């Protein structure tokens, strides 16, 4: 045991990964129908491993935390800005309700158990997981009209109460919001979030369907066909819809036909077009085309790709005009997206620069079309780290400046700044995919997951020893007091949001997590919802909650003293 402790103390980074590994393991454990979840699991693992007296610097915590905040912002940016105007005030109000309830319940519990001002401040700071409260409370205590020794005693009580209730606050908030609240509201969280995604974003990604909108099929031109003796150009222009002869087999040889080639009986042609056209027009009796299976002829590579329109000549053209361009031959439009919103593919839909066209066709045709349209956005494994890092730094620099008002610093704060950085980058990415880099979703997943569990692991490691010491000093009533404070205020917020504001449950839980600045709870909710919708409610609520909770330090000291 000592040898392991020695290694872990010499290499705290291994202790860090040990906490993560144990945490994900604990996270899979179910207690009845409740699941612990990776976040709570990691926190507990951290407390456990923390008993080895391992210290890990705060830089580690911060790095992971910032990555997490940026990632959740990036993912929800588009929906956030769309919803902000209509729902922003609602989120702020609900966050205020949660924060005010937190103060009142904390005060009530304090009177109930007869705590002094220092313990009361620690209780509120800890159970609502806002360390800024400690600062304002100490400030307020120093201004009280008391003897110096009493002030010192009060001040010393703050961190003890904080250490104990902080863990209760983190775990309690995560558990109440992710497990208890959906059960009380009787909603299927994952389902509600999926619905919300569908409402705001059109449809979400679905598995590939068996039906392909556009197909490539091979036909033999029979002797009786009216196409014998007519040209490829006639054939392609005949139906009114777009079909193309991609290549053909003539006398056993595979050749690329020119537009003025005249069909002979016995030629086999590979035709691309909409499935409906192929099945219902080309395969009707009177065309004299018989479908055949010609593997070699059809074995060409196809490609589906997103292209951002940058060519000035295309700006303002309708899809019909676009389809007539030389470069559009053999290419079909699947989707058109503007500012992250799907547009209908209609003949007279007008294309603008910055639109994203999803096109499909054979490799060479797609390449030609991409050159004409603009810039291809190919799916790769690569993350645009420049955008990630710049977003974090810029966000932080915006978030940090604060105004001091009566002893309370009011500003966006670092976390909200970085979250905002992520939101803006995510939003810009959906609007201007050419300039704003790609973050593949497995990467976002890892940012979100390891970002938060990494943060929580350090919190647990560092808080572990203090927690045990604190409980020994002050007893279990403080644990109870913390649990009451955090759960009552959150549950009130949940019910108010559901019945008063009629919010979507996913967003609602995000707002509640924000109202008591409990980021781990947000991650737990997202884990339970298997969706990032909850973080839509988080941003505004966090900013509001942050300010209120910081002020509570002053208020509770004055109330109790």
């Amino acid at each position: 045991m000592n040898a392991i402790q020695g290694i872990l103390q010499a290499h705290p980074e291994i202790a860090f990964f040990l906490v993560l590994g144990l945490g994900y393991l604990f996270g899979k454990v179910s207690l009845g129908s409740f699941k612990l979840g990776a976040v709570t699991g990691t926190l507990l693992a951290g407390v456990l491993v923390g008993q080895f007296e391992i210290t890990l610097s705060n830089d580690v915590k911060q790095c992971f935390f910032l990555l997490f905040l940026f990632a959740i912002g990036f993912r929800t940016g588009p929906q956030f800005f769309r919803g902000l105007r209509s729902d922003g005030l609602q989120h702020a109000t609900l966050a205020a309700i949660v924060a005010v309830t937190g103060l009142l319940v904390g005060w009530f519990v304090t009177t109930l158990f007869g705590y002094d001002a220092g313990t009361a401040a620690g209780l509120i700071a800890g159970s609502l997981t806002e360390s800024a409260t400690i600062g304002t409370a100490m400030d307020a205590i120093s201004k009280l009209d008391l003897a110096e020794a009493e002030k010192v005693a009060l001040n010393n009580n703050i961190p003890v109460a904080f250490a104990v209730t902080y863990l209760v606050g983190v775990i309690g908030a995560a558990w109440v919001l992710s497990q208890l609240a959906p059960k009380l509201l009787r909603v299927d969280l994952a389902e509600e979030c999926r619905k919300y995604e569908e409402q705001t974003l059109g449809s979400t990604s679905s598995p590939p369907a068996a039906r392909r909108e556009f197909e490539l099929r091979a036909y033999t031109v029979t002797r009786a066909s009216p196409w014998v003796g007519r040209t490829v150009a006639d054939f392609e222009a005949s139906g009114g819809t777009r079909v193309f002869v991609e290549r053909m087999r003539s006398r056993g040889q595979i050749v690329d036909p020119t537009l003025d080639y005249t069909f002979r009986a016995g030629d086999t042609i590979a035709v691309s077009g909409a499935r409906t056209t192929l099945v219902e027009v080309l395969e009707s009796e009177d065309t004299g085309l018989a479908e055949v299976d010609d593997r070699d002829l059809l074995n060409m590579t196809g490609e589906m790709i997103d292209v951002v329109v940058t060519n000035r000549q295309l700006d303002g053209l309708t899809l019909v005009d676009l389809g007539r361009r030389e470069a559009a031959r053999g290419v079909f439009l699947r989707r058109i997206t503007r500012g992250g919103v799907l547009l209908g593919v209609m003949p007279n839909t007008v294309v603008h620069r910055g639109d994203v066209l999803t096109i499909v066709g054979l490799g060479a045709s797609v390449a030609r079309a991409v050159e004409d349209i603009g810039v291809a956005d190919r799916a790769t494994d690569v993350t645009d780290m420049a955008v990630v890092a710049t977003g974090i730094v810029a966000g932080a620099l915006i978030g940090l400046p604060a105004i001091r008002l009566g002893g309370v610093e009011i500003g966006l704060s670092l976390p909200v700044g970085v979250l905002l950085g992520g939101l803006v980058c995510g939003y810009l990415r959906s609007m201007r995919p050419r300039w704003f880099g790609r973050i593949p979703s497995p990467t976002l997943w890892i940012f979100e997951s390891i970002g938060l569990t990494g943060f929580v692991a350090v919190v647990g490691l560092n808080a572990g020893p203090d927690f045990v010491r604190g409980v020994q000093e002050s007893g279990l009533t403080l644990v109870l007091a913390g649990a009451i404070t955090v759960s009552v205020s959150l549950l009130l917020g949940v019910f108010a949001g559901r019945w008063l504001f009629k919010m979507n449950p996913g967003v609602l839980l995000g707002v509640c997590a924000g109202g008591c600045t409990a980021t781990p709870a947000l991650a737990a909710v997202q884990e339970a919802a298997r969706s990032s919708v909850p973080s839509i409610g988080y941003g505004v609520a966090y900013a509001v909650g942050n300010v209120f909770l910081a002020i509570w330090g002053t208020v509770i000291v004055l109330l109790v003293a």
Partner: protein
Amino acid sequence: MVVWQWIVDTLKTYPELGIFLALAIGFWVGPRKLAGFSLGNVTATLLAAVAIGQLGLTIAGPLKSTFFLLFLFAVGYGVGPQFFRGLGKDGPKQIAFSLIVLALCLVVPYVCALVAGLDLGYAVGLYSGSQTISASIGVATDQIERLGLPAEQAKAYLDAIPIGYAVTYIFGTIGSAIVLAQLGPKLIGVDLAAACAEYEKQMGGGPGGFDAGVFSAYRNVEVRAYRIDASSGLTGKPVRDLFPGLRIFVERVHRAGQILEADAGTTLEPGDVIAISGPRAALVEQVETVVTEVDDKPLLDMPTTMVDVFVRSKDVNGRTLREIADMPATRGIYLRKITRSMIEIPILPETEILRGDILTIAGSTRHVDAAAALLGHADKPVESTDLAVVAAGIVVGGLVGALTYTTGGIPISLSTSGGALLAGLLLGYFRTVRPTFGNIPGPALWLMNTLGLNVFIAIVGITAGPGFVSGLQHVGVSLFLWGMVATTIPLVVAILLGHFVFKFHPAILFGVCAGVRTTTAALGMIQEAAKSRVPALGYGMPYAIGNTLLTIFGMVIVLMLAGGAS
């Protein structure tokens, strides 16, 4: 000025922002091309970090190690399969060649360092820069810290590493590319483009594989919709008896506005539209002689999927494909690929399936799920990373690596970073033969790789920042020249050796050389010069060996130099 002061104070209070700032600049400057060459993300991040380091930020140690471990684990995980496959049976020639070249890559910088009289720190920098293996910096750092030197001395060495690295890295990259792509072919008197064209012809086409978003326009298995009328003769009997001898399946039925899922016993009625899945040839040539194809979007819009299934079922073990195809649970699924011990085996009716095989099956989601449940464990492509396995791997590797064996006063151990690399290699390999756990999707692996290394490098740069400028003035030009020597000699020898002794095909040779030295930039240049992707064929396995050994050599060179000094 006030703003500037505020920014400096902010960075000092939140040093993690300094790291992200270095990354932001590094990743922005890194890819920019100057006269055909780019600095690369790592070097650009290092330089940016050195600049930021001038402000005097302090960053605690564990952060650096944390990201470095993550990086090494990812490296190991990525190359694991090729590493062990190479060790197994393929290409012992490539392995032997790689080992010889790698020995040169270690010895030549070592000799250069001795001749030039460089101290330990610069020597390590010279090695990692001239061989462009930034990962070795971390391993060397670990080893230096364990030498038991006075703290001040160790710090001086550690701060010298990035200087040596930055000075020699530039030629390490550009020089390797020039030597391999331009000089090399002339040296052995071959026309690279012609050699590649000939090789392609020999092998019958270039390397296969599709990028994301690219697919073959020919679909072997299709789903089509058909209208059933009374004259078709298909009504009134169970669908399993409709087309005896053909492995095609009625998937769904569109009847009176409702879509029903069909099973083997379903009977059809006149007026139904049915979706049939099956090989394209069977549909086009047999089914369509009986019924008329129609387009029916809602009917055909059924979710399909393709998964790798790891066979665990005892019921299937030892059965032939013909037998398995008759089982009710395999209704509606199509076999695409069989992989046994990482090698693809042909799909024939009499092929026996064994436990441990990986079957790639496709079909409608409903059927694939049913079949996967029968066969074993489906390895669905998911976005999430199995972080429990990642963390566990790093912990176990790290603990094993932390065990130290002291010989002749020099403590030798795998080091925690070496342990993480090894754990990654093993897990990456196990993942390919036993894909039941430890999923890391490509983009996540890329991220752990890139972010892990660059955060590490950024911290190295920020920490070394204050002494960097004076160090550079002290050793600059001569170190650069020694770096050229250390980069060029192993490569030139490698080309000659590979051509005259090992007799590699010239098309492959340069890929192998680039692989051993893990220099992707050079591979790009070679492919450009060859106008072909063939050289990449030689890149894989030597890369896996090179990446592993060159990293560990970071420790070896420290031991060699420290041993020589004492």
